[in-house]
Each structure stands twice: as structure tokens, then as C-alpha cells.
């Protein structure tokens, strides 16, 4: 099964290996025809109307603004409905550095996103701390704080790269199993178990 989008041929994607692994997992597990079709329908809907959360801490956020404007026009893909409230958004583009003081706020925003929710680590700061790696007040990547779906390198990444990253995310959603399979909620529970927080009962 080739997972792709209408606008891009399968071979044009740079990293199909990961998606193929997901597809294989999906096929190996096997599913009932009706449930499988329902999954497809749900995934079709979800992957084509991803709503981002308006969230930016620094430079990458400005490229996200450019992405929303006429030239790069993310409305072509159905992502233009940037929500200011996390409760209405589907995914969060972590655009910028996350510093110590921001971590609790950021985590709360993630927790407030409605399921199913996704995270794109946008730019080197969000991936690893980037140029501020050695700073006393910067989180070394957001992967320790929330589960990340797509890593998008760049300082800051170009809007085209952002389009690619969100398209990757939508491909990932296309091979998700909503019924029976590994659900996002379970994935989050797993993540919370692996990252215990003192004093908080997950």
C-alpha cells in the first residue's frame, strides 16, 4: 500500500521506510473489512483537515506566519484554520525554543489538546535545544516533555519544509488504526508511564 497525498507521487517522498514499517504492522495485525473501511474513512477525514494550534515562541513562528500567508498558502491543504485555543486544535507545531519556565505551560497546552493529537518539533531548538544547547535555561529538545510525531530540522525551517512536515504527519495519520489498534490515547498513557512526574498520579 502506497501512502501518499494527491499532490505528490510516492517516490518523491524522502523517507518512505518509516511509513512502510507502519503499513506492514497494520497489515500483519490484520483487521475486519468493515472496521478497516471505517478506519480508512476516519483517517481520510482527519488527515485532510489538520488544524494547527497558534503556538510560537520565537523565530520559527514567523515562518509559520509566512506559511499562512498568500505565497505558501497552507489553506490549499486544509490546514489554515489555526486555532488559538488548544481545545480546538489537532496538532501543535512547536515553533521555537522551549525554556525551563515555558515547560509547564507547554505541557499544559499539550494536555489540553483534544485527542487525537499530534506534535511536530519544528526547528533545531525544539528538536535538541539547537544553538542554545549549552544554556542554563533551555530544555534540550521537547521529546522529553511530550511525544513527538514529526521532527522538522532547520533554523528556522523554510515554509516549504513545514509543508513537507505537515504532509508527513497527514501520511502518518492515514495509516493509523482508530478501532482496535494502537490508539493515540494508549500511546500517551505509555508515554506518561515512561516519564513519571513526581507528585502526579498518571
Amino acid at each position, binding site marked *: 500500500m502506497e501512502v501518499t497525498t494527491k499532490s505528490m507521487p510516492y517516490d518523491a517522498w524522502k523517507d518512505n521506510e518509516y511509513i512502510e514499517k507502519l503499513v506492514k504492522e497494520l497489515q500483519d495485525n490484520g483487521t475486519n473489512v468493515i472496521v478497516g473501511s471505517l478506519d480508512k474513512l476516519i483517517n481520510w477525514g482527519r488527515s485532510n483537515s489538520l488544524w494547527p494550534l*497558534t*503556538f*510560537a*515562541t*520565537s*523565530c520559527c*513562528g*514567523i*515562518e509559520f*506566519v*509566512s506559511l499562512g*500567508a*498568500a*505565497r505558501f498558502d497552507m489553506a490549499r491543504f486544509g490546514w489554515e484554520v489555526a486555532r*488559538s485555543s*488548544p481545545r480546538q486544535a489537532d496538532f501543535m507545531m512547536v515553533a*521555537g*525554543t522551549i*525554556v*525551563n*519556565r*515555558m*515547560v*509547564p*505551560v507547554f*505541557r*499544559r*497546552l499539550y494536555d489540553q489538546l483534544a485527542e487525537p493529537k499530534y506534535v511536530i518539533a519544528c526547528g533545531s531548538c525544539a528538536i535538541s535545544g539547537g*544553538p*542554545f544547547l*549549552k*544554556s*542554563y*535555561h*533551555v*530544555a534540550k529538545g521537547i521529546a*522529553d*516533555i511530550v511525544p513527538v510525531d514529526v521532527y522538522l530540522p532547520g*533554523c*528556522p525551517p*523554510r515554509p516549504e519544509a513545514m509543508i513537507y512536515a505537515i504532509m508527513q504527519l497527514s501520511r502518518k495519520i492515514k495509516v493509523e488504526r482508530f478501532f482496535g489498534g494502537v490508539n493515540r490515547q494508549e500511546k500517551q498513557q505509555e508515554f506518561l508511564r515512561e516519564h513519571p*512526574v*513526581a*507528585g*502526579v498520579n498518571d
Partner: protein
Amino acid sequence: MATIQDKIAALCPEAQFEQADVLQVTVPEAKWHDLAVALRHDADLAFDYLITIVGMDWQESMGCIYYMMSTSRGNETLAVKVIAAGTRKSPYLPSVFDVWAVATLYEREVYDFFGIIFVNNPDMRRLFLSIDWVGYPLRKDYDTDPKLNPISTESERQSDFTDTWTLEKGKLVKNEVRVFQPEDFVVNIGPQHPSTHGVLRFRTCIDGETIKKIDVYMGYIHRGIEKLMEGLTYPQCLPFLDRMDYFSAQNYHSGMCRLVERAAGIKISRRAEVIRVMMDELSRIASHCLFMGTFCMDLGATSMLFYTLRVREQILDIMEKTCGARMTFNYPCIGGVMQDLHPDFQKDVKALLEIIPANIKEYQKLFTGNVIAKERMVGVGLLSKEDAISYGVTGPSGRASGWSCDLRKIRPYSIYPELDFEEVLATEGDSMARFNVRLHEIEQSAKILEQLVDNIPEGEYCVKVPKVIKLPAGHWFEMTEGCRGVLGIYLESDGGTTPYRVKLAPPCLPLAGVVDHITEGMKIADLITIGGSLDYIIPDMDR
């Protein structure tokens, strides 16, 4: 200069003078407050603008260097060095919050980084770091062990109290004061809010719809750039300048380069100077375009963003061809610029200059003349000239209050003295004036570009500089006109390849500091207009 020196010597006989790039006076801590009052109010001195307070840790002692400027007397600058009294555990200095309004904020910053207590400052809290932070990061003996200050997803401890310190019989006494009264109704705006332009937080005390007081809470993007720079060589320091105010990336970057070049005695070619100035002005247009877009979006006119970003994208294309990046260009370097101009540069700039007048007309038609826009902006957020100076509000926001603070005019650097352009000034001091000043600055920047585009001299774009740049021991201070105001850079070298101390005094910190003052008594909806019109960039103020 002699008269100032005599005058200060008469006021404070113990003062020692040192002529660096700025006249520096060293005064004892006990005399500092009285001297500050005299410096501010004496008609022959009248140093009314406090540029920055540089906290210093010289290891054997700690202290501050106050950089100030006299706006009424030809924009003369003066530096005052004061060594803190007390032990290293609790050093203290008298506060000058009653002399310059912006000092309240600057002193909090110094306290946060160095632990120097300012006696009598009404608000002696940490500014960027949490209340439970262990240590003072910019001290030389700061323990960087992450275990001391772990990253936690637990909400930060908050306090409704602030500290003030008084000196009683030579002993420091700490008093707790409430930030808000128990009966106050406080609404939290930010840090995740689309209209705060990033992650800034306002604790807003309101009475009905009227704002009584705002406590600006920053540090949500404090990345510790100043400390990072202390461990890096001079060329390695430069990329951080791009990531502060990412709209003024070119301006900040060339400012820092100019400082290092001056300190190292490097003379750059005229071609490099012209390229830098052209890039600065292109940045200014792009920055003001984005300001208009986001500001109008805050007010509800989303379509304006698409109009202004059109011009911005065109400028980014020009820059991308030459610099290879759309943002964070890292283009100027010590000795000139990184690479030569792209062959299309002149053609592209001319194409840009052609469309700008028509675009400005369009913005005027779409927005400035709009009755709703007028209702929301005229008379909202008044800032008088005196307050602008006292609060250190520079850049277009300061000029909208009638303060002639454009460094390109008042303390010209690079090739600006040869250029024909006007400083845009307004007298109203409201949000509309701040908007208009920026709109007209686009015209002036275009005028500068017009003069230069056909006159880019031939020559090398980067002179030969030593591979390892070492600066002699000493200290330098440089000011640059960014897109949002004056960036002051203080650099101290101990003779090595890395700076001993770099202090970046960003224009956006005072811009955030003045919010409380100008929103008082306004409606809460006006907070968005005022914040938008001041146009602060959060990573710039937090660094």
C-alpha cells in the same frame, strides 16, 4: 567634555575619570544616589535617558555600569561605574528608580543575573528566572549543574508578593509587599495568547473593564544568550544576534560586527559598508511590513497581513539570493560581509522600490483611513515625550512621542551621515502615531535604498582579518538603531579570544516595561492595541 568632568568632580570629589570610547566615571556607592539625582536634574548635565545598566562581576568585586545619554544637550553619553557594597553573598547598591523610571526594570534584571540588591527599589523580584532558581547565572562562579535547577513540568511557584530592601543602620532589611491588593481582580493574559506576539504574560488587574495595573511577567523565552557568549569566540557570538530580534537580524548583526571591528582596529571596505546599510534598510522595510500585518490582525483586520506580507516576501527573496536564508541570515561578518552580492541584487531592489509607493498608498486606503481603525487607535495609549525618555522607549515608538531618538541621525554611524533622509517624528504619542511613524519610515528607508542602489562601489566585500580574533583588554559600548529601537552592546575583554562579558541592551525590554504605565486607566481591549503598536519582540527582551 571638560565641563562635565569638572562639574562631576565638584559634585563628587572622589570620582575617578577614565576616557574610554565613552567617558567613564567611577564613584563610590555611598555617593551614587545623590550624584544620579544631580546628573538627571542639573541643567548643565541633564542626563535624562538611561540607556542600560550593565551588571558586572569582576570576581574580586561586583558592581554596575550605568550608561546614560543627555537628549537635550547634543546626545552626549556618559558611563558611571559603581562598585557594590556588602559581601559577595549579598552585594547592594542604592536604587535610582526615582531618577529614571526604566531603572526599576533594569535593576530587577541585574538582580536576577548577579544577585545585586538595589536598596529601596519597590519591586526587587527576579525578572526572567523562577523564584526558586538557585544561583545567579551571570556570576563567574555560577554552578551550571542542571540538577540544581531541573526542568519540571510542574507549574512554577507563583507569589503575590514582591520584596523591597531597606538599609537600617548599615544592615539590609527585607520587606514583603503585595503586587496586587487582596481585593483586586486579576486576569491572566498569556503566555499563550495570539495577541501578545509570543510568550509574554500580563497579570492584569482590572476594575470592570478598566485596567488598574499590569504586572508584566517575562522569561518564557529567556535563553541565556549573554552567558553563552562568554564561552564562545567573537565570530561564534554573532549568530545569537540574529535570534534575538529576528526582524532586525541584519541591523543587530552589523552592530555587533562594528563593535568588534572597532575594538580590534579593523577597517572595512566601503563596499561592505554600503551593502550592510542596504541590508539594514531592507530589513527595516520588511520588519515594519510585518508589524503592520500583525498589528492590524490583532485589531481584527486579517486581510492586511496578506497585503503587507507580499512586500516582505519580495524582500526576503532579495536577501535569500544573496545571503542564502530567509531569516537568521548570518550575513555581516567581522571584516565585512560573508559573500558578495548576488548579480540580480540591484535589479531586484529597483523592482522593489518601484512597487513600494503604490503599496503604501494601498495600506493607507485600506487601513489608516478606515473609521474603525481610527476609533481604535487615535488617542489610545498616550505616551508623553518626557515619559518616553524616562522609560527609555526608543525606536519608532519613541519617535511617535516626539523624541528624536533615531541613532542614524543623532549619533550617525557607518555611512549614514552622507545619506539624505529624514527622521520621522510625530507628536501625538498615541497608537495611531506609532503606526504612522512606521509607515513613513518605510518611505525613508526606500529613499536611502534609492540613493545607494546605483552607487555600490567596487572593492572587496570582506577585508582580510586574522583567523583568530583577539581583542585587547578593555571595554567598548556600541549602539545600533534596530527596527524597534536602540540596541546597546557592551563588550568587555580580558585580552583573550572570548569576551569576558557581553551585555545586550535590547529595545524591547523598556517597551514591555512601559506597558503598565500607558495602559493605566485604559480599557482592557485597548491593551491589545497598545501592545501591538509598541511592537515588542519577546525573544529580544528575554534574550
